């Protein structure tokens, strides 16, 4: 505990360093992408910082497996036999209660209930339900905290996704990962604090956009850096073909000499900072390919994640890469996987999506556990909203579509100090929450809390207002946190 407290205060030091960026420090390492682990020195913010949360963090790092497009909770986690019993019957108005609908189903005359085509069973000591589509995830049931009572306000992808990532449906606010980088810095001198990995499934896709990993008004050192496995893992990382690493070293030495000449003339600390940035770039050129090279993983690991993990750009490869980045100290690794937007042909599409993701998601959790990292790494799996219990388009036993549904959906978390179990409950129609609702702001507050940050105090003043990830709301869901 003492050690954790100490580490936490080192983090505070880092943060203090960050908050002074762009102010008095002027050039000293201004805007280094790689935030130093500890910044010492006198600081006037001492008094204020004493007010910072005094609790120790449960988690040190996060891996967020974002299932972009909104997976159907009713076909994966939230078992509702009533929907099969009443298959094809209209959703009662008493349940819908005037919930606004998207333009895709608002003209439908009927809202026929669609029971899931898939079989469900209970797993682990928690007795959580999983459909047959998620055998691997079901296999780690006892590691998971399944939240069935998530809800949001947005009913369209872009605002909903933006909301989940930045705490606001519109605008250009900092992403979760940027806030954590701002609050806690990076643990690794050679890697950014916030990395982003993209992949696509075969299902109906919804694109992603760089605004989702933006630094917003925070310093751009906190921006998510897009990574990939394969040949060019980070933008402009690779030297041009004719330029080997040793030659690069020689060039950088000459460059430092030239820049130091100019420093002698102008005495601008920015010049020194520039020299350091080139050194960091050079270190990245060595460190990043080592991490993104998945070809040297042992057979047991490949088997665990599935053979796909050797194909760059797949979800499985990204899960494995996420583990490696996280293990190397990247504070926040954000994955996005497209293809969950099942407006039609849902049973078919979701089967394919699960084939692409189930094994690797579970493997990531197991892999972290076997390395002793699960306790300090929070893994999150989920989409931006849920899907309707009624059918969009033509309803058949084995084929249907589901529209967007903001009022309830399921996500899961593992490791990082969360308590395994099932949290929250929806009604028997799977339409409204009846117990323990968790709003997106609550989710953000809880995640920050697990990282040792008080969501009301992690703020940044921009154009007169103090912004936070949770805007002006959010309660920590204490029930799901290990004591």
């Amino acid at each position, binding site marked *: 505990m003492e050690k954790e407290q100490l580490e936490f205060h080192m983090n505070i030091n880092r*943060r203090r360093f960050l908050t002074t960026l762009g102010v*008095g420090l*002027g050039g000293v390492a201004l805007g*280094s*992408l*790689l935030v130093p682990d500890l910044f010492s020195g006198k600081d*006037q913010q001492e*008094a*204020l910082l004493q*007010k910072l949360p005094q609790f120790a963090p449960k988690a040190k790092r996060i891996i967020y497996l974002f299932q972009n497009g909104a997976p159907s909770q009713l076909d994966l986690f939230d078992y509702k036999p009533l929907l099969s019993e009443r298959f094809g019957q209209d959703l009662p108005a008493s349940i819908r209660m005037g919930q*606004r609908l998207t*333009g*895709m189903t*608002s003209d439908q005359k009927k809202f026929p209930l669609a029971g899931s085509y898939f079989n469900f069973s209970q797993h682990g000591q928690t007795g959580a339900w999983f459909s047959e589509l998620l055998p691997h995830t079901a296999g780690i049931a006892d590691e998971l905290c399944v939240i069935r009572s998530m809800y949001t306000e947005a009913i*369209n992808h872009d605002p909903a996704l933006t909301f989940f990532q930045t705490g*606001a*449906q519109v605008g*250009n606010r900092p992403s979760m990962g940027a806030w954590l980088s701002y609050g806690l810095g990076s643990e690794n001198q050679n890697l950014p604090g916030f990395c982003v990995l993209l992949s*696509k499934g075969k299902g109906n896709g*919804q*694109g*992603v*956009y*760089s*605004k989702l990993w933006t630094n917003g008004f925070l310093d*751009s050192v906190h921006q998510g850096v*897009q990574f990939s496995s394969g040949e060019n893992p*980070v*933008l*402009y990382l690779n*030297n*041009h*073909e*004719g*330029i080997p690493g040793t030659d690069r070293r*020689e*060039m950088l030495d000459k460059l430092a000499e*030239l*820049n130091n*000449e*100019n420093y002698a003339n*102008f*005495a601008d600390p*920015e*010049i020194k900072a*520039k020299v350091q*940035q*080139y050194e*960091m770039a050079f270190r990245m050129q060595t460190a990043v390919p080592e991490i993104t090279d998945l070809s040297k993983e042992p057979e047991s690991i490949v088997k665990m994640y599935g053979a796909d993990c050797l194909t760059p*750009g797949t979800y499985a490869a990204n899960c494995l890469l996420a583990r490696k980045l996280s293990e190397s100290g990247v504070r926040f690794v954000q994955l996005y996987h497209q293809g969950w937007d099942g407006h039609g042909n849902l049973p078919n599409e979701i089967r394919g999506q699960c084939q692409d993701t189930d094994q690797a998601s579970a493997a990531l959790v197991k892999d972290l556990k076997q390395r002793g990292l699960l306790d300090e790494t929070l893994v999150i799996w989920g989409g931006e909203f849920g899907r309707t219990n009624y059918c969009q388009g033509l309803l058949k036993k084995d084929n249907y579509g589901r529209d967007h549904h903001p009022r309830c959906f399921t996500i899961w978390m593992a490791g990082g100090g969360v308590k395994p179990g099932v949290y929250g409950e929806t009604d028997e129609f799977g339409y409204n929450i009846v117990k323990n609702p968790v709003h997106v*702001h609550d989710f953000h507050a809880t995640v920050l809390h697990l990282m040792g940050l008080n969501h009301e*105090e*992690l*703020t940044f*003043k921009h*154009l*007169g*207002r103090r912004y936070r990830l949770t*805007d*002006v709301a959010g309660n920590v869901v204490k029930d799901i946190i290990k004591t």
Partner: protein
Amino acid sequence: MNKPLIVLASIAAGVAVLAACMQKQPDADRLPDQVSYNFHIRPILSDKCFKCHGPDVNHQEAGLRLDIPERALAALRETKGAFAIVPGFPDSSELIRRIVSDDPGYQMPTPDSHLGQLSEKEVALFRKWIKQGAKYERHWAFTAPKKPALPEVSDKKWAKNEIDYFILAGLDQAGLEHNDAADPEHLLKRAALDVTGLPPTPAVLDSFLQQPDDAAYAARVDQLLNSTAFGEKMAVHWLDVARYSDSYGYQDDNIRTQWAWRDWVIHAFNENLPYDQFVTWQLAGDLLPGASREQILATGFLRNHKYTEEGGVIPEEYRIEYNLDKTKTYSKGVLGLTVECAQCHDHKYDPFSQKDYYRLFAFFNNAKELGFEGDITSSKPAKMPVLKLTADEVHNTLQFINYKDTGSLMVSVMGENDTLRKTFVLNRGVYDQPTVQVLPAALPAVMSYDTVNIPRNRLGLAQWTVSRQNPLTARVWVNQVWQEIFGRGIVKTSGDFGMQGDLPSHPELLDWLAVDFMEHGWDTKRLIRQILLSNTYRQSARVSKKALQEDPENIYYSHAPRVRLQAESVRDLILSTSGLLVSEIGGPSVKPYQPKGLWEAATSGRGELATYQQDKGDKLYRRGIYTFIKLTVPPPSMILFDASNRDQCEVKRLQTNTPLQALAMLNDPLVLEASRVFAQKLLAGNKDATANISLAFRTILCRAPSSKEKEILGKYFEQQLDAFRKGKLDAAKTVAVGEYPPDPTADKAQQAALMKTINLIYNMEEAIVKS
């Protein structure tokens, strides 16, 4: 969009702990002789008290309001016989008792506000202010500027023009000294980059160096202002304000053609259209009597925001969203205010009620615009209302539009509905929760809206905006121009002139410039000329130890700032110095080299922009302003160098220094190709390595290399040449970069060695810095 969250959003300005001391002044602990409400008290009140005791009528705890004297000095409603402020008697003032109290149940700010307690200095300021009578003042930025008299200064001879008087007075007060003049080479590089975004050529430098006196410098500045590159440089900032892009944004993010409006902006700056007209045309060109096509085109300004093409959205939700964006762009970009905070509730800090907000919003709410025209399968290059320009029209009357096609050109512009659409206050800012109806009116706290003499439409708003009595418009623009030149505005928070904004570092200078600007016909070129001809601007950028210690932010301008070039200029400098630049003005945006797979990884696969189709030939070498901006995946080399992502109105870019920038300078094919082509061109003219290196150095850095620099570079070249000759390095592979045709006759080893040396020069810190 459902708005409750956003509503909540603005209810609270959250918490203070971390950022509270972002705006500290470098002064000592000494209290001023006369404590000023505007400069000493209001910033503290606003930051620590207004959240609960400010202008938001729904959140005035205990009925107390501290932003206006009538209420702040009145008897407290909840504490009988007590007064928050008793002028002359700090010890009898409840405010003082509470801010010094240790009792968590009594002290202010309350512990659960997370705002933190006041410092001893702040308490002392309050005591002195109350002792001196607790005099309130109107917010400086809401009072029309008056031209102040020039201050007394220590060294009148140094002052070239009025600007220098104000700067020197500040330096005198701070006990700092001005710097020596910059040498002519640095000065000309700085001026050329500030005015045109391009460095001077060696020939221009040479001719200037022959007689670098005042007259020659002034003539150079005029030449720069009259070059067409001026419009391109100025437009970059305005495109940030106007959130210009080449795609619709949101998830599917299809192509749009709004670039004709961008061509107009360049044209307007080059023609030096007075700023009052520049603003009027963009806000209401379509409503001007006998509006010309050009004036209508200008209103594209209000239509540059994002448009959703996501199937299934609720149209009204987005129509409202678009108007919120228009309101924000106008208020932040033109007035320098954060009015959007009043979208959901009365503003927490500034005297803008929620009703005021929707009155302003109402000006934009009568456009013939739809919230949703269909999903991406029916996407068009422009959205209603559309200005359709025939090729003939463009070629005959709108020649500034660089349009080579024969079909007609469509641009999204403004146009009013025939019957007035009613505007309502939206409860908590939610589109489907209208409450009371409001009529269009501008912000009364800034300046009253004369409904007798000006119409209640966008044209009226434009007239109100550019009125000589409007306290903000000229100040805000002058400040933005100053910011673009010095790297920081006289008001540092150039997007917030309200209560929470930073105070001007030189308030009298700002007012002098603003009034002078209006008195001389809102003449932007003249303003820039004044700044560039000042001795303040002409100082050397060398930093003394004293300055670094006592004024590390250089608030007092004891030396010229060293500022890294903006993203577009980094590209422009590399292209122009290497001889690759194609200096064609305007036209459809272009797609230069970009790392593979970026668009493809993010797209849903729908629409014209699912894959990146890189351009060929001349289009690879256009200025940065013409690089295609797809909103969901903006051009990476621009974003790395802090360009706006154009998602929303931005008035100020960040300035960062990251290893990703270093990687881009080292490995972006643009820089490598430029190095190769530059080497190729030099070798075609002269085989002498030393001369070539010196010329490359001088072209890129705009100065001659020192002997030490010559030595380092010469050695590097020799080593490289040796390695290439001996086959330790592969010359053929090295020079194989970029699509510009190679010179097959060139000696590859020589070319590769020179290319690497030039690449080294491009990577020098100084290369992309104004100093």
